[in-house]
């Protein structure tokens, strides 16, 4: 796959760059001029009130949403300029973990991990199979390799989904409210797995989450997004303990009791 055409040289130092990104759904302006550079290997958490544009921002990184204005540059590639084929190739390196897991129900846990990398040739068959087994072990589900999603709990399904994303050997992982659809008693097991996954230095990760303790613990950068704009941007201790804006203070007041 020839990808060089859409490479923009000066942006390669950063894994993801948002350049004046505007996005509207009809009259509803969801993103109002986002400028951001996300470093390679960094772990960034995006927080903020619902409807503030968090998920939308995340979804511009694999072009599930396309900006009306401005551009998103991933690993040096301008997503606006990418053709359908280029986009598919780029997406192989951008994993996504969804709120509702979205495992393939007609495939076993192991097949969920291997189907895409085998079909799209992300490594030889042996490599993919051993990577998949290793990742299932990493999420604590080596013994459920042959179970179908319907036979797994929500927490287990989400852990399989995380392992599925990892098995593609991605450069970027996007987590879109990964614990929001879980029963309370299952949130912890998924957070623990995500914490372990966050140790992987070579993967750039973006998390949209409402789990503040988790956010503070695993991230090296926190973004507070409200009304389509970045209101706070800094290391977690600063954003959580010395917020600059009154909105952040108000937001923290609402969620921390």
């Amino acid at each position, binding site marked *: 796959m020839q990808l060089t055409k859409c490479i923009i040289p000066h942006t390669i130092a950063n894994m993801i760059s948002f350049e004046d990104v505007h996005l509207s759904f009809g009259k509803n302006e969801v993103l109002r001029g986002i400028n951001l550079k996300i470093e390679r290997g960094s772990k960034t958490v995006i927080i903020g009130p619902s409807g503030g544009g968090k998920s939308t921002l995340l979804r511009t990184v*694999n072009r*599930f949403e396309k900006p009306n204005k401005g551009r998103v540059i991933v690993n040096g590639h301008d997503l606006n300029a990418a053709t*359908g*084929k280029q986009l*598919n*190739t*780029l*997406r*192989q*390196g*951008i*994993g*996504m973990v*969804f709120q*509702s897991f*979205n*495992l*393939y*129900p*007609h495939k076993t846990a192991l097949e969920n991990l291997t*189907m*895409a990398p085998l*079909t*799209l040739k992300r490594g030889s068959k042996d490599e993919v199979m051993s990577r998949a087994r290793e990742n299932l072990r990493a999420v604590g589900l080596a013994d459920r390799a042959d179970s179908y999603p*319907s036979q797994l709990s929500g927490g287990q399904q989400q852990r399989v989904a995380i392992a*599925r994303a990892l098995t*593609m050997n991605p450069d970027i992982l996007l987590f879109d409210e990964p614990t929001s659809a879980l029963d309370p008693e299952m949130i912890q097991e998924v957070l623990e797995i995500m914490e372990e996954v966050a140790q992987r230095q070579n993967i750039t990760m973006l998390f949209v989450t409402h789990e503040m303790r988790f956010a503070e613990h695993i991230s090296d950068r926190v973004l507070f997004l409200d009304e389509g704009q970045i209101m706070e941007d800094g290391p977690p201790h600063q954003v959580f303990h010395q917020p600059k804006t009154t909105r952040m203070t108000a937001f923290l007041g609402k969620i921390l009791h």
Partner: protein
Amino acid sequence: MNGPFSIRNWRTWFKAAPLFLRGYGQTLLISLWGLLIALLIGVFAGIALTSRANGRQRALAAIMRGYMSFFQNTPLMIQVFIFYNVLPKMGVRLSVTMVGVLGLALYTGAYAADIVASAIRAVPLGQTEAAESQGFSRAQTLWLVILPQSVKIALPAMTNQVVNLIKNSSVLAVIAGGELMYVADSWSGSNLIYGPTFVMTGLLYLAICLPISMIARQLEKRSVRNV
């Protein structure tokens, strides 16, 4: 004993039974081919109806809508007459069997398309997103993720269509299709034995349709349980 169900009438019918079995074979043969082609049409049209990403796909979807509207809203008998009587005048000569297969396939395909389309739409959007986030193309997403799940959803309704198709094949009697209903109609007319003829003919249809209906009901129950 006289009357339509006299022993003599039964005896005469049973002597002619091999004739009916040949007609039965023709019914099953036409139905099987009709079904296979109807399924192909249904899958193709169903996919066309649900993919409207660009202008060409939208045009194709509109054409499929037109096809379905015509074949769903005109009697099968008229369609068969057109294939049988009008096409030869346009230089297209088809055997009676071919007309039967084609007529049943186009008629049933129009319904199968709706079933396939709604089964595709019934697969949650999250499945498409999961597949596309992994870098699958649209075609791969459809083939590997959406269609395997749609099959399960479509199966009960499709099985009902199989029963309809087999029963509808009796319409081919009007063009001397050589199938069961044609044999029953012509044989009973020339032998003036109607009672045993149509009871047995009905039973022959029942013998194939009832088991399929029962399978359909089982499939429906199973799919309700799995929701």
